[in-house]
C-alpha cells in the first residue's frame, strides 16, 4: 500500500504536464479558468490539437490508434488537462460512441468512423433521452422501420448536449414493439445533415443553449449505419454506461475550481472571515476525500484485485461538490453576483462589471447551470437506488 505515484507514473505526469503547457492555447485556458463562454471553435480547436497528438481518444487501446494507457495514466492525463485549464473533452465521439464502434461495430464501420473521431474533425452527438423518458431510458419511442437497405426514422430525442454543433448522432431507436421494452431497441448512427433532421436548441435557466431537441421526420438512414444486430442496441448502450468511469466524479476539475473559489474569496474579502472560510474548509475536505475515493478505484482497476463497485458514490459526491463550489463562489461575491450581463461572460469584454471585478460575471449563471449535475447521467436519486441495492440487496 502506497500513496505516492511510482517514478514511472510521476514521469508520465511530467510529460503530460509539459506537453499541455506548450500546446494548450492561452486564450482557451483563460476562459476555462474563469468560466467564460467557450465557443464551438474553442472546443474543437483543443480537440484537434489533442487529436493530432493522438490523445483525443486517450482511453483507446493501441490497436485502434489510442495510447493504450492504464487507468492511472488516464487519470493523470485528465488531471493535468483539468488543472491547466483545458476544456473538458466533448465525450460523445471519443469516449462514448467510439468504444461501442470498437466493441460491436464491423470493420467497415470502424474504418469509416473512428479516424474522424480520433482527429476531432467530426462532431458527434448523443441521442438517448426522449421527452418523458427521464431516468427510464428503456422507454425509447423514436421509431426506425426497416425498408430494404434503409431505416426510416421518425421521432424525437431531447437533452442532446451541444447537439447544435453535431454532425453525426448515435441514437437508440425502436425497431420492434414486441417483448420487453429493452428488447426492441437498436443502436443507429445518423448523419445529422440528412433531410428531415431538425435541431432546436433549448434555452436553459442560465440563458445559455447547451442542450437541444432533435427531431426526425421521415429520415432515411442506410442500414449499414446499424451497429451490431438489430434489437440488440440496449446491450450496447448498457456496455457503454457500465464502464467504470472515475471521470464521472470530475475531481480534477473540482480541484481547479477550489483554487478559483479561494481566489474569488480573497478578492471579495471573505477569505479571512471565519464563517465563510469554514465553508471552504469543508469543501476542501470533501474534495480530498473524493480524490482518495477516486484513487482507490484507480488502484483497484490497475491491480485488478479488488474491484470497487462504487460508481454511484462517485457520481453523487462529485456532483454535490460541483454544486457546492459554484454556490460558494456566488455567495462569496454576494450582491456582486446579481447583475446578469450576458456579454460580460465573453472573454475580452471591455465593459466595467458592477463593482469592478469581471470575474464575478459568470458566478450566478454557473451556480444555476450546475443544478443539472444531480439530475443528468442518472439522477442522484437513481444513484442512491443503485447504491442501496448493492448494500441491502
Amino acid at each position, binding site marked *: 500500500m502506497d500513496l505516492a505515484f511510482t517514478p514511472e507514473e510521476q514521469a508520465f505526469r511530467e510529460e503530460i504536464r509539459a506537453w499541455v503547457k506548450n500546446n494548450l492555447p492561452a486564450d482557451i485556458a483563460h476562459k476555462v479558468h474563469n468560466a467564460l463562454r467557450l465557443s464551438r471553435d474553442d472546443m474543437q480547436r483543443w480537440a484537434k490539437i489533442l487529436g493530432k497528438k493522438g490523445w483525443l481518444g486517450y482511453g483507446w487501446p493501441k490497436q485502434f490508434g489510442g495510447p493504450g494507457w492504464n487507468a492511472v495514466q488516464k487519470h493523470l492525463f485528465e488531471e493535468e488537462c483539468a488543472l491547466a485549464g483545458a476544456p473538458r473533452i466533448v465525450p460523445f465521439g471519443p469516449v462514448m460512441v467510439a468504444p461501442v464502434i470498437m466493441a460491436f461495430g464491423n470493420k467497415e464501420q470502424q474504418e469509416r468512423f473512428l479516424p474522424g473521431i480520433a482527429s476531432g474533425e467530426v462532431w458527434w452527438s448523443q441521442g438517448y433521452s426522449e421527452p418523458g423518458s427521464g431516468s427510464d431510458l428503456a422507454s425509447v419511442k423514436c421509431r426506425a422501420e426497416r425498408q430494404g437497405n434503409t431505416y426510416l426514422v421518425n421521432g424525437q430525442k431531447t437533452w442532446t448536449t451541444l447537439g447544435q454543433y453535431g454532425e453525426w448522432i448515435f441514437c437508440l431507436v425502436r425497431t420492434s414493439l414486441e417483448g420487453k421494452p429493452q428488447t426492441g431497441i437498436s443502436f443507429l448512427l445518423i448523419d445529422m445533415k440528412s433531410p428531415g433532421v431538425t435541431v432546436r436548441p433549448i434555452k436553459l*435557466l442560465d440563458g445559455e443553449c447547451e442542450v437541444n431537441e432533435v427531431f426526425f421526420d421521415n429520415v432515411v438512414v442506410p442500414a449499414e449505419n446499424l451497429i451490431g444486430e438489430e434489437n440488440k442496441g440496449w446491450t450496447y448502450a448498457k456496455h457503454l454506461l457500465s464502464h467504470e468511469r472515475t471521470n464521472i466524479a470530475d475531481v480534477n476539475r473540482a480541484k481547479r475550481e477550489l483554487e478559483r473559489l479561494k481566489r474569488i474569496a480573497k478578492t*471579495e474579502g471573505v477569505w479571512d472571515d471565519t464563517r465563510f472560510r469554514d465553508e471552504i474548509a469543508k469543501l476542501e475536505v470533501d474534495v480530498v476525500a473524493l480524490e482518495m475515493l477516486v484513487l482507490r478505484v484507480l488502484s483497484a482497476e490497475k491491480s485488478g484485485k479488488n474491484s470497487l463497485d462504487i460508481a454511484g458514490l462517485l457520481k453523487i459526491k462529485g456532483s454535490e461538490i460541483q454544486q457546492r463550489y459554484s454556490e460558494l463562489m456566488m*455567495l462569496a461575491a454576494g*450582491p456582486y*453576483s*446579481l*447583475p446578469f450581463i450576458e456579454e460580460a461572460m465573453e472573454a475580452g469584454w471591455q465593459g466595467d462589471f458592477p*463593482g469592478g471585478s469581471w470575474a464575478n460575471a459568470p458566478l450566478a449563471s454557473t451556480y444555476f447551470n450546475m443544478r443539472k449535475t444531480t439530475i443528468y447521467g442518472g439522477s442522484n436519486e437513481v444513484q442512491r437506488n443503485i447504491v442501496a441495492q448493492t448494500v441491502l440487496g
Partner: protein
Amino acid sequence: MDFDFSDDQQQLRDAVAKWVEKGYGFERRRAITAAGGFSREAYNELAELGLAGLYVSEDDGGLNMGPVEAMVVMEQLGRGMVLEPLAQTLVCSGVISAYGNADVKAAWLPGIASGEKLVVLAHQERRARYRSDVCDTVAKVAGAGWTLSGTKNVVPAGDQADAFVVPAMANGQLSLFVVERAAAGVATRGYLTQDGGRAADVTLANSPATLITTDGQTALEHSIDIGIAALCAEAVGVMDQTLAITVDYMNTRKQFGVAIATFQALRHRVADMKMQLELARSMSYYASLKLNAPADERRRAMARAKYQLGTSMRFVGQQAVQLHGGIGVTDEYIVSHCFKKLTQLEITWGDTLHQLGEVSARMQDTAGVFA
C-alpha cells in the same frame, strides 16, 4: 396573540392576488424581462391599487397601513414574482416618514404614494459587502444644502427610479439623503439582474442632495429591516407557489409507469419542503409583527427571520428544480424562475451566513419569540 387576518387585510390580499393572477402572468413577466426587467406601467398599476402609499399617511395621500398589510401585499407579489420593486417603495416611504422633516415629507411622500415618484434605496458599496456601517460616499456642505460624491452598485431599478435614498458620510457621520436621478452629476448604468429584474450602478459627482437625517446608521438599519420584513413575506409567496408547482408536477409526471409522487424518497423531500415553508411563514409573521419593536429587539428579530428564510429559500428552490428533473433547468418552465428569484432574495439584504453572524452577535441568556 392572534394570527387571523382582519376582513380589511383579507380584502387587500384578494385585490392584490387578483391583479397578480389577471394582470401579471408568466408571459407578461417574461416580456418585461426581455424589455429590460422593469415596467413603469406595471408599477403604476400597483400604485393605482394604492400599494405605493401603503406606508404613507393619509394626509399625504397614502393608506397609512402597517407591517401586517405590507406582509399581505408582498406575499401576493411574491406569488407572481413581480419584478417591480414595491419593497423599495416601502423602505423609502417608511424611512422618509420616520426620519424626514416636514419639508422632506411634503416633497416626496405624496409623489411616492401616487406612483408618480419611484424612490429606491441606493446603499450598496463595493467595500461594504453586507455591512451597513461601511460607506465611502461623501457628503459636503454646499450653500444651504449638500452635495454627494460616490458610487452605489446594484441599485434596484436604479436607472428607472426618480430619486434615491442615499447613505453618505457627512462630517464623519453616516447620514441619509435624497438625491434626484435628474440632478447634476448623477450617472446611471442599468442592467438585468439574475431574477429577470433590473438594477443599476449609480455614480454621484457633487450631486445636489437633501438631508433626511444625520442619524444615518439608525435610519439605514431601520430601512434594511423594513426591507427584510417585506422580503420575508415576498419569499413566502414565491415558495408557496414553488411548492404548489412542484406538487402538481409530481402528480402528473410519470417514470417507470407511475407518478413520481409515489416514490417515498421524493415524498419525504416534499415533507421537508413543507417544513421549510411553514417555518419560513412563521418567521415572516414574526418579522412583520416585530418591525415596530424597539431597534435592538427589531434588529435581532429580523436577523433571525432572514436566517430562517434564507435557509428555507435555498432548500425549497434547489429541491424544486431537482424534483422537476431536466425540465427544471430550462428557461421555458416556470420553476427555474422561482429558483432564481429565491436565490436573489437570499442574497438581498445579507445572505444566510451573514444573518447567522448577526444572530450570533445578538444572543442573550434567554431566547424566544418574546426575548
